[in-house]
C-alpha cells in the first residue's frame, strides 16, 4: 500500500469535517473519491499533502502513512515533492509554458540547464502536451486553452517526480474532448504514479478508476473496487447516491 489512512479525523473551527476515515491506497492505482458537495473530499485530499496546515483552526487526529512513514514525520517540503496536487481550476503561474514546468525544479535548487530542459520536455510529453506546445515554450501559459492549462498543471506536478498525485475534480471545468484527453492521460500516468481522483462525475469514476470510496457528511460510507461499488454496492446510501437519487 502506498498510502494508508488510519482513524483520521479533522475539525475546522471545532466543527467535525472528517470522521474516522480509514482508506488504503494501492500503489499504481487510480482511486476515486466520490460524494456530494461539502462532504469533505477536498479537505481529505489536502490533508494528504498537509495543505490544510495553512488553515487557521485546523486540527486533526489519526495518522496518514506514505510508504509506511507518518506524513508528519516527513518535512513539509519533501512530502509535497512526493505528493503532487492538481486543482479543479487550472492554476498555471503567470510565466511561460517552459517556466511553469521548470518551476518545481528551480525551487528545489536545480540549476543544471540541460537537466531542466530534459525534464521539462519529458514532463510535457508525459502529460500529452508536448506536440501542442513544443514551438511556443516561451509564450505565456495563460494563452493556452483550459484543457491545455490543466495538462500543463499535470506536467508541472510530474516534473518534480512525485509518487502520488492528488487531483481535485481536474475535469470539472473542461469540455468533453479535453476531459477525454485528461482521463486518457490519467490512465497512462498510473503506471508510474499513484493517483487519488476526486470527481463529481460518476461516469468518470467508473471509466477511469480502479477503486472508489464514497464520502458522505465527513464519513466514508463504502470503499472498494470500483466495479463492486458501482455494480453491487453493499450500503443502501451508496446505491442511492450512484443511482442519482440524491447529491
Amino acid at each position, binding site marked *: 500500500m502506498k498510502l494508508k489512512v488510519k482513524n483520521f479525523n479533522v475539525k475546522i473551527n471545532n466543527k467535525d469535517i472528517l470522521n474516522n476515515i480509514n482508506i488504503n491506497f494501492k500503489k499504481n492505482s487510480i482511486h476515486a473519491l466520490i460524494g456530494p458537495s461539502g462532504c469533505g473530499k477536498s479537505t481529505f485530499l*489536502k490533508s494528504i*499533502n498537509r*495543505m490544510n496546515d*495553512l488553515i*487557521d483552526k485546523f486540527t486533526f487526529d489519526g495518522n496518514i502513512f506514505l510508504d509506511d512513514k507518518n506524513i508528519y514525520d516527513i518535512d513539509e*517540503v*519533501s512530502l*509535497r*515533492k512526493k505528493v*503532487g*496536487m492538481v*486543482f*479543479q*481550476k487550472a*492554476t498555471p*503561474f*503567470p*510565466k511561460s509554458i517552459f517556466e511553469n514546468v521548470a*518551476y*518545481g525544479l528551480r*525551487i*528545489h535548487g536545480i540549476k543544471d540547464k540541460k537537466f531542466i530542459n530534459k525534464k521539462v520536455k519529458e514532463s510535457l510529453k508525459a502529460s500529452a502536451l508536448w506536440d501542442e506546445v513544443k514551438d511556443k515554450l516561451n509564450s*505565456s501559459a*495563460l*494563452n493556452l486553452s483550459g484543457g491545455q492549462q490543466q495538462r500543463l*498543471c499535470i506536467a*508541472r*506536478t510530474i516534473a*518534480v517526480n512525485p509518487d502520488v498525485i492528488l487531483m481535485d475534480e481536474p475535469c470539472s471545468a473542461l469540455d468533453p474532448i479535453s476531459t477525454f484527453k485528461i482521463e486518457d492521460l490519467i490512465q497512462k500516468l498510473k503506471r508510474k504514479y499513484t493517483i487519488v481522483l476526486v470527481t463529481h462525475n460518476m461516469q468518470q469514476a467508473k471509466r477511469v478508476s480502479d477503486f472508489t470510496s464514497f464520502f458522505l457528511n465527513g464519513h466514508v460510507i463504502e470503499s472498494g473496487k470500483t466495479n463492486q461499488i458501482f455494480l453491487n454496492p453493499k450500503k443502501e446510501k451508496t446505491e442511492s447516491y450512484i443511482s442519482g437519487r440524491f447529491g
Partner: protein
Amino acid sequence: MKEKFIKVLIFTSGFITILLFVVIIAYILINGIPVISFEFLFANTLNSGREGGILPMILSSIYILILTAIFSIPIGVGIAIYMTQYCKNILLIKFIRFISRCLASIPSIIYGLFGFTFIVLFLRLGWSIFSASLVLSLMAIPTIFQVSEVTLNNIPLNLIESSLGLGATRLQTIISVIIPIAIPGITTGIILALTRAFSEAAAVMYVVGSTFQIPLSIFDTGRPLPLHLYILASEGISFENAYGTATVLIFIVLFITISTNYFVNRYQRRIKYEIKS
C-alpha cells in the same frame, strides 16, 4: 421614465466632474505655460521667487520623492505581505487595518505639526529634506499598505497552494508567484500615495525649512514645489511664478502617473494576468 431620469443625472454629474477637471487644469496651464522657460526650470531662485527659476524646488521635490519612496514602499508592502501571508492572528490584522484607516484620515497639517514637534524638535533631526520625507512616508504608508493588502488578498488561493504544493516555501512562493502577480496593483497604490506626497504642502511646511538654496544633502533644508507655490501665492510674491510652479508640478505628476501606467500595462500584457481588486 424613472430610469431615464437617473441616467440623465448620472451623465450630468459625470460630465460636470470632467468639466471641472478640464477647466481647472486648463486655467492653470494657460496662466502657467507662458512663464515656463529654460531659465525658469534650470536657474537658481532670486528675490524670494519673484525672479529666477525654480531649480532648487524641483530638486527638493525630487529628493523628497525618492526618499519617501525608499522609506514607505518597503514598510507599506512589507506589512501587507506579512499580514496576508504570515499573520494568522485575526485580531492583529483587524487592529492594523483600523490603525491604517485612522492614519489615512488624519488631515495633513496635523502630520506637519507632529513632524515638527516629534521629528524636528524631539528627535533633533532639524528642518531637512530627511525630516520631510519621514513625515510624508508616514502619510504614504497607510495607502500603500491598504492597496497592497487588497491586491494580495485577491490572489487566488489555489495559485498559492499550487506553488506550496510543489514543495516551495512560503518565501519562494511570495517571491516567484505572489509578487509578480501583485506588482501592477501594488504599483498603483504606490503611485497614488507618492503623487499625493509629492503634491503635499501642509504636511511639510513645518519640517522642511524654506531655503532657496539648491539642497546638497538630504539633511539640508529645502523647499519642495507645493510649498513654494503656497508661499508665492499666500504671501503675494508672484502669482505669475506660482502658476508656473503649479504647471511644473502638474507635469511632473502627470509624467509619473502616465509612465508608470504605461509600464504596468505592458507588464500586464506580458504576464497576461489581471486580478480584480
